[in-house]
């Protein structure tokens, strides 16, 4: 389980990509991302160019088969853009995504279609994610039709199977219904079913439970974990709720201002957050405890930076209490590995 430690210099990039590609097919690495940058152009009055929103600005990681990683960060950190680029909805400005040995940048139309059938997407808003004018059966049938499953009978069987897997039984009760007739939890199950119906290897879940009630959240999270274990799926679970991460992922990545500032095994990171930002996030997460009412939380001052003109050096430095003047505000920190398998892009670990 090796990961490139320094992949910022142009010259090294092709070698790293090649290495990644080899390791992807030989190893059990499902997806490799190297130096991914996703920038959105800012227009000025329709024609002028006013800069770029650097939503994802140099992200590297490997995802193994059957592994669940959680990407944690606040709004505006770029996790949604990262996710959508992985899903093929955005084109990266730079960088490579290698999935099962194939480079996404070099995929043609057919390649992209194959790629899309290997992924499933679970969205945040269960009601919005389902077309309100389609029945559940039709909703689940759409990916199959697009994926080329012509036989109606085969589609019906696969839909039934998937419905049973998300524990909506008997399926016939639900298939003719429309989304507004289902509860939030049931809707989310349909969304999951739709993600699973093409039997993918990799599921991307964007805050899948944040719009559900507390009691239903746990149910859905357990369902997802069950699916992961049964099918050996890889998961990318994007969230800002750290307390759910414990029940669901092997590794956690913390994202801030377009970069991954910390990566590590879930237990390691929760026990010992290395990056000051991760530390702040953990400190800000509450458990239900009456003593909380009497204490104030330590919150880093300020707001997340603009992604158009990020701060020089470490992007967190304007808010960091442990800033090293002259270093953090001038040079961007590379990734260090203070513990085995636990990485942090922070000068403290130089």
């Amino acid at each position, binding site marked *: 389980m090796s990961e490139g430690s320094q992949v910022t210099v142009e010259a090294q990039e092709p070698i790293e990509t090649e290495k990644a590609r080899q390791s992807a097919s030989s190893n059990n690495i499902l997806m490799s991302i190297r130096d991914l940058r996703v920038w959105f152009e800012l227009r000025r009055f329709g024609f002028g160019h006013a800069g770029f929103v650097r939503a994802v600005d140099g992200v590297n990681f490997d995802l193994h088969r059957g592994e669940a990683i959680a990407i944690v960060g606040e709004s505006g950190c770029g996790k949604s853009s990262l996710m959508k680029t992985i899903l093929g*909805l955005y084109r990266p400005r730079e960088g490579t995504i290698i999935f099962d040995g194939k480079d996404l940048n070099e995929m043609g139309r057919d390649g992209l279609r194959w790629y899309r059938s290997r992924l499933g997407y679970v969205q945040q*808003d269960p009601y919005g994610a389902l077309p309100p004018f389609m029945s559940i059966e039709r909703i689940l049938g759409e990916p199959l039709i697009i994926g080329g499953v012509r036989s109606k009978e085969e589609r019906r069987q696969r839909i039934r199977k998937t419905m049973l897997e998300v524990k909506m039984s008997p399926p016939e009760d639900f298939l003719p219904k429309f989304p507004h007739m289902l509860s939030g939890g049931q809707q989310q199950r349909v969304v999951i079913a*739709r993600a699973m119906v093409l039997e993918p290897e990799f599921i991307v879940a964007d805050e899948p439970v944040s719009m559900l009630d507390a009691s239903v959240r746990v149910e859905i999270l357990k369902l997802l974990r069950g699916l992961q274990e049964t099918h050996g799926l890889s998961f990318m679970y994007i969230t800002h709720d750290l307390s759910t991460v414990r029940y669901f992922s092997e590794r956690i990545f913390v994202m801030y201002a377009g970069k991954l500032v910390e990566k590590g095994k879930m237990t390691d990171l929760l026990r010992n957050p290395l990056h000051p930002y991760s530390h702040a996030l953990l400190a800000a997460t509450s458990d239900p405890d009456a003593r909380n009412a009497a204490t104030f939380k330590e919150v880093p001052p300020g707001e997340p930076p603009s992604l158009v003109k990020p701060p020089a050096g470490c992007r967190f430095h304007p808010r960091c209490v442990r800033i090293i003047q002259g270093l953090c505000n001038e040079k961007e920190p590379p990734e260090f590995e203070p513990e085995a398998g636990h990485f942090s892009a922070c000068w403290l670990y130089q």
Partner: protein
Amino acid sequence: MKALQRTFRELLRYPSAVIGLAIIAGLLIMSIYAMVSIPYQEALRLWRGGEGVWYKNPKLAAPEWTNLFRKDKLPKSIYLSSLDGSASKEVTTDAKGNKKIAFTYTFDYPYAAFPQELVLFFTSKFSAKKPYAAITWITPEGKSIRVAEISIDQSTVYYFSQDAKLQRRLLDVAPQVGLFVNDLKAKNPSPLKGTYQLKISANIFEADADLDAELLLYGQVHGLAGTDHLRRNLGIALLWGTPVALSFGLIAALGTTITTMVIAACGVWFGGWIDQLIQRITEVNMVLPFLPILIMVGAFYSRSIWVILAVTVALGIFGAQIKAFRSTFLQIKESPYVEAARAYGAGNFRIIFSYLTPRLIPLLIPGLVAAIPGFVFLEASLAVLGLGDPTLPTWGKIINDAQANGALYQGYYYWVLEPAALLLIAGLAFAFLGFSLDRVFNPRLRGM
């Protein structure tokens, strides 16, 4: 299907929708009846009129039901013919082979006004010698008035009102008045009610010659809808105008709305220069004056209704509706389910037709229904301006004829009011239906 039934039931809760649907149903029945009972070609033929088509109708006669509102009833036309036996015809032959034919026409005249005109239509068969007829008029009081003695051609028409000698004999009172009054010198004469008789004594000089005569008293009211200046029964035009108006309205509304929807969706989905192009075309088109362009097309190119329909749809596609649809589509485009569709690989056109446009239907249907009257009025306006299809009998054409013949100045109100009323009712019905549909599809309007 069930959604449709539900919508329908929801709709019936609104009285305006019920009224609207009832009226539209009535109009549809009228259309079907019109198309079935008077086929298209027949309608055109009738409307063109000409010889022998409408001669039995009075000119500019009001509808018969207006008599319900009059104390003094206006006369209906009275038609008596020796051909169909409503008049008696006696043929006597004398020794020399000369035939004498006596026609008797008997009728009741209970009306309070005078007929428009009295006409005798003679048709005769002969080889050389023309028959000769003597016409006598007998009033209810038994007075016998000598009308005329004329020789008959193969087809002769004798207008009582054009006989100057008869008029002189009646002390210069017009014959259609004078034959019906007792006191010829009265200032405001009113007709003598009772049974009248017209006798014709005709001499025929050949053995196999024959003579027939039809007596026609033109009334002042006729039919359900009245007649126009060409004696045409307005009912034909009103009836046939219904399917024309409805189909023009419907086709134009459907054509423009659906095409607009597709164009707006494509523009929004593909974005970029396509969207910009569509927007600019729309903006230019919105500035162009719609009716004047149609008028020009009608005046310079062709007045065929199909051409007008085509130009209407073409100009209507890039209208203000594109902007309204576009703003809705822009919102719908951002929906999570559209994003999910892209993620599982739906192609562009699949997304446009299966995911975007169905969301627009609640907006579309009320707008469509409410746009129909606009197109109906458009077609009528063009016809009123004289630019309608000249061969088709439509409501607008009736108004155009009425205006050309000074209907309102001369008091022939029914001529204008009947088509106007139909236009009004049709427009109202669709407007009612459209507004109710709007309330059904957009629950937020329900409080109103």
